[in-house]
């Protein structure tokens, strides 16, 4: 999807993010969770899917620490992550509130919502035991 499609296929995703809810498409026919949003479910090609809220918990599948700011207001360095969400879907994001030497493949993370470039975005941070 290009940003030109943002007002159709993915507008509901971003509306939820604005309300600090992380959602993902879930297929009504086969139960598949998928991301990014597609016109049809990639498993069964049904267009009958809805956005459902995620618990926002996951693990880092992979990450990279980037030492080359792109001029988008990111800190230097910044950490890009590919997160496996508990419901069985995945997305790219950035990891915040984390020391560089604390990151590893498999690290448990949780979603947080922060403003970036004047819109709310879903970031992740290490999931720490609640006191």
């Amino acid at each position, binding site marked *: *999807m*290009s*940003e030109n499609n*943002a007002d159709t296929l*993915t507008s509901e995703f971003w509306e939820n993010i604005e309300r600090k809810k992380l959602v993902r498409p879930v297929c009504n026919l086969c139960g598949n969770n998928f*991301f*990014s949003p597609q016109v049809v479910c990639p498993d069964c090609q049904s267009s009958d899917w809805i956005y459902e809220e995620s618990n926002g918990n996951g693990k880092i*599948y*992979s*990450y*990279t*620490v*980037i*030492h*080359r*700011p*792109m001029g*988008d207001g*990111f800190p230097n360095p*910044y950490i*890009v992550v*590919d997160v496996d969400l508990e419901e069985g879907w*995945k*997305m*790219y*994001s*950035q990891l915040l509130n984390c020391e560089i030497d604390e990151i*590893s*493949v498999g690290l448990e993370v949780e979603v947080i919502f922060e403003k*970036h*470039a004047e819109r709310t*975005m879903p970031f992740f941070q290490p999931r720490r035991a609640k006191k």
Partner: protein
Amino acid sequence: MKNSNVAIAGIGLTEQAKSLQENNITVCIQAVKNALADAGMLMKDIDGISARWPGPGGTEFDSGVIDWSGVFGKSFRWVGDTYPQGVPGVLDAAAAVSFGLCETVIVFGGQAGILNRSELAEYTQPNNEFVRPWGLFTAAHFAMVAQVYFARFQPDRLKLSQIAVEIRNAGSRNPEAVMFGKGPYRPSDIVESPIICEPFHLLDLCLATEGASAVIITSLERALDCPHTPVRILGGGSEWHRQQYVDPARYDEVGAIGKDAFERAFNYADLTVDDIDVFEVYDINTWEIVRQFETLGLCSEGDGTDFLFENGISVNGRYPTNTDGGLLSFSHTGWGGPNLKVIEAVRQLRGTASGDQVNDAETALVTGAGSGAQYFNAAILAKN
């Protein structure tokens, strides 16, 4: 070598540089002229063209796409619009020629007059709402795949750096390479260069440069009339996993991308990897070379760094690789960059390399794309 009725009859290269004073069209035309001269042909001999193309019948002008029939003021019997060029362009052209859709195809691509205006090549940056906001760029997509491999197998960093050293030093010796005269490099230079995106340092990563290149493909029969010894296209294969740089590229999905393409290419060519004399493989970063040799089955998953360190990848090694300096040091010209692998393979097989030359090279493996791009392609070329 039964399936070899198609051959490369000409190659053309322009100056390669960090930036050129030309534009995308003029630099490509120069490469086309050079290839025609190399093949002893004129534009009227060309009836197939593979370049980024909306063409007659198409209306969508994506960035970098040009109506080449208008530029050359002629019509064609066959057009290919492979993105990018290189192996997919050559294989599609070979199929078109062998099926009689046309006689002679020119595959070309390149860029000029753009890199001095923006640091990152826009073509690799889909304007995607789930990628761009996180600050991903091409090297970062590849890094995300490599990090999982590094976590699992922990390759020796200095041995891995030796791969970049050998390729970069080949470029240092090659007068046509953008990085000619730089270096020589030692493994410590690689790991001491600035880290860009873990696990990759600056000197692990390919260039972004300007220039153009062109390849002429025709029947073996026609190629035998041309000035240079034909280089036959013996086989090839491609894997298209996903659109590049949109959704996460994952090691568990694309770590072995190329395995099927290699198998099909070698089967069709009736050769094995042990028959290959020179490897012109896609070195978008140092680790991607390791991944490809593991995928070729020459060593097991996780052992590629040690394997290449012990066997050697310079012209004096067991597996001469990226003899011109590769994308790391020779040049990488955007969507036309993959052609450079084909051109260096042809030069090695002709014995006319501008830099290091493998003695009596008869067969070459050429590859394109890679894990982070989520597609891959390979071709086997041989001296007639």
